[in-house]
């Protein structure tokens, strides 16, 4: 299940929904990304997330499908927020369920690495000194490339 929304999410409730009535799930790995108050500049007061509706959902679905083809998964929940967010707010949630922990850990890691470099989201950070668009990081691309080598 994939959602792009402005509203906050409840990671606990999402995980509970993923595992409800299931007896075959042996491992759940959950990742929550939060807004930091420092990034390229200190004292980030807010950030605005823009996306490309239509393509975003399609790109996220492709990433989840790719993860499901690489690991035996019993369910995935992926939520990404858009709009204006404040430091401390949750931005992104990935919950992956599998029979065993290794697949769940790896698939969760993979989904985040691919999301960072392939899903059409853009962050603009707001500070007292002005606003700026966040630049891409080479470390994110290096992280995503690791999954291609193996």
């Amino acid at each position, binding site marked *: 299940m994939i959602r792009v929304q402005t509203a906050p999410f409840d990671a606990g409730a999402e995980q509970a929904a993923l595992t409800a009535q299931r007896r075959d799930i042996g491992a759940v790995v959950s990742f929550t990304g939060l807004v930091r108050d420092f990034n390229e500049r200190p004292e980030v007061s807010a950030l605005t997330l823009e996306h490309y509706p*239509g393509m975003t959902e399609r790109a996220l679905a492709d990433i989840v499908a790719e993860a499901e083809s690489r690991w035996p998964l019993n369910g995935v929940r992926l939520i990404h927020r858009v709009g204006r967010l404040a430091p401390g707010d949750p931005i*992104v949630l990935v919950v992956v369920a599998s029979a065993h922990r290794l697949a769940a850990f790896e698939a969760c890691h993979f989904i985040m690495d691919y999301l960072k470099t392939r*899903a*059409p*989201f*853009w962050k603009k950070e707001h500070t007292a000194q002005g606003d700026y668009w966040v*630049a*891409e990081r080479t470390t994110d691309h290096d992280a995503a490339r690791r999954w291609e080598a193996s």
Partner: protein
Amino acid sequence: MSLTHLNARGEAHMVDVGDKPVSQREAVASGRIYMQAATLARLEAGGMPKGDVLATARIAGIQAAKRTHELIPLCHALALTKVSIDFHLDAAAGCVEVRTLCRLAGRTGVEMEALTATSVACLTLYDMCKAVDKDMVIGDVRLESKRGGKSGDYRRPEAEEAPTPLVTAEAAGIGMAARPAQPCIQVKCLAELRERLGVGEVAVLVDELPSNDVAGLKAALTARDARFALLGEQRVLCAVNQVMSGEQAQLTDGDEVAFFPPVTGG
């Protein structure tokens, strides 16, 4: 309701305010001048060729408030007790917002003074910045609130807080979103690229393309406006019909092509 500047015969006349009681009056007006992101950044950094833009516009606005009666035919000359002009540089909206407060103890309102000061401050901003940006647009000049006098207090109804634009096509200044009847490609520019170009959505006729692919589309856009040369930069990505594509991707009538910077979500 009758128009006070027209007499019984429908002729323009100046209202006799001699019998009106003196009261404390105040009016706030606002206006905006939209400009390219680069112009706004340069203004903020103090790099305009004519010098201190905001200080000059502020003085111009104050002077204009005092001379409103010379410009607007049926306005009374007022002894203003206060004129203040504030500027807000709004990078998200790509504009400078001008806000003017005028105050006096008198027999007639000060909204015309506030509106005139706002307009002239905007015109002065244009004059001070036109060397680097001729596409600036002045708009949204309006009364925000007024206080005192017979007609009572007024406050512009709060506009509903616009949601953060997610696709920002409609927020863009230039470009045409409507689809022409001839075969065409719909182009979207997203995020920082949209702000740098000042264009969110534009349609390009298939006939304009030197070759029916993404490279041809970039060439056609650049031929139309040199600013689109930005699309040639290495780190501009492209999606055709919402799928990541390269320069050689073929294009046909009705295709949607989006250009955007590297993604930074998560």
